[in-house]
Every structure is written in C-alpha cells, then in structure tokens.
C-alpha cells in the first residue's frame, strides 16, 4: 500500500490498533495488581 494517496491511508485503523494495545496494557497491569492483593503462594 506504499503508493496510497494521503487521504486514503488507514489513519483511523492506526488509532484503533493503538487504542487496542492501550486497553490490553491497562488490563494487563490491573490483572497483576489484583493478583498482588491475593494470599501468597509459592
């Protein structure tokens, strides 16, 4: 898609995928936080 004109570039998708990654990072961080509040196991 290298020769795409500027107005045809998938700019919305770029925003969507980075939003997707951000949601995943936040949920990942939250999950580890919830885990750290649990009883201790080892």
């Amino acid at each position, binding site marked *: 898609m*290298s020769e795409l004109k500027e107005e045809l570039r998938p700019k919305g998708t770029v925003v969507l995928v980075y939003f997707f*990654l951000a949601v995943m990072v936040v949920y*990942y961080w939250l999950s580890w936080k919830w885990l750290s509040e649990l*009883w201790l196991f080892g």
Partner: protein
Amino acid sequence: MSLQSPQKYWWDEPLDKDEKMWLTVAIIWALFLTLFMPYMHYTGKQNPSQEYAKISGDKFDAAVDKFIAQYKVGEEAGFAVVAPPPNSDIFIRGKQFTWDPILKLKKGVQYKLHLSSLDMNHGLSVQPVNFTIQVVPGWDNILNITPTTTGVFTIICNEYCGLGHHTMVGRMYVD
C-alpha cells in the same frame, strides 16, 4: 482482492511505514509478555508451586486422617475442624461431594498445603478471596500458602465432578 490470486511479485512489495511501526510495537509487546512471567517468578509473591508428587488415593486418604487426628480441635456440620501449627503440612481432601477437613489457619503464617482428590478432578475455589487451584486424583498438588486476610472462607468446587457438583462446598477459617 483476497478472493483472487494476488498480483505477481507480491512478496517484493515493501511494507508501509504504519505497518512497520505497528509490527515493531507488536514484537516488543510479545517479548515483554514473554519475559514478564518468568520475571514475576523471581519478584512476585503469587506463583504456582514447582512441588508436586504422584500419590495414590489410599495413601493421601491415610495422610489426611492422620493430620486430622493430630490437630483436631472440634467439629462443625459433621466435618472435623483442624488447627495446625505454623509452617506445618496441611491437607484438604476433595471427594464427591465434600471438602474436608475445615482448616483454622493464622493470618501471615506460611503452611505447606497438600491437595488431592479421592475420585474425580475438583476445583478448589476459595471465596471471597477468589482463587482457584486444580485438584487432581493421583497427584499431590503442593503449595506454600500464606493467608493475608482473616475471616470465614467458603470453598466451592468449580470443576464439574458429577451430578452433586453444586453441593460440594467446604469451609476454612483464618484469624
């Protein structure tokens, strides 16, 4: 289009800069996800145990009976209540459709918990702290466990184990 054969030499078409950027970020994230699990084995306080052993149902049953006889302090709803000393080996026995004995533990004290089943797979789901450990017949699942909250806890079975599965509920106390 994706329903037709692509143009010749499609392999030589370079990737766009947005694709390259996203690919790079995704690779970094994949590497991070991979490394973070072993990292937490060193720094985290909640890790699966590396200790386990094969054990027959009879042997485990006998071990639990001995444990109950040693530390029994009372009875509740027909189940033995057991108060083991700190750092001792403690046992929970799963069988259709009960968890026993009832453990009385101390907050902040480590115990070596042995879990096994005399019949089916069971799921030791402790509420409301909310964690689940798999209980497998023929295997002693051994975890060093330290309760960090006090109260009355309910053990639900969350691995389907037969038609009475939903009645398989046990107790645990931490003070």
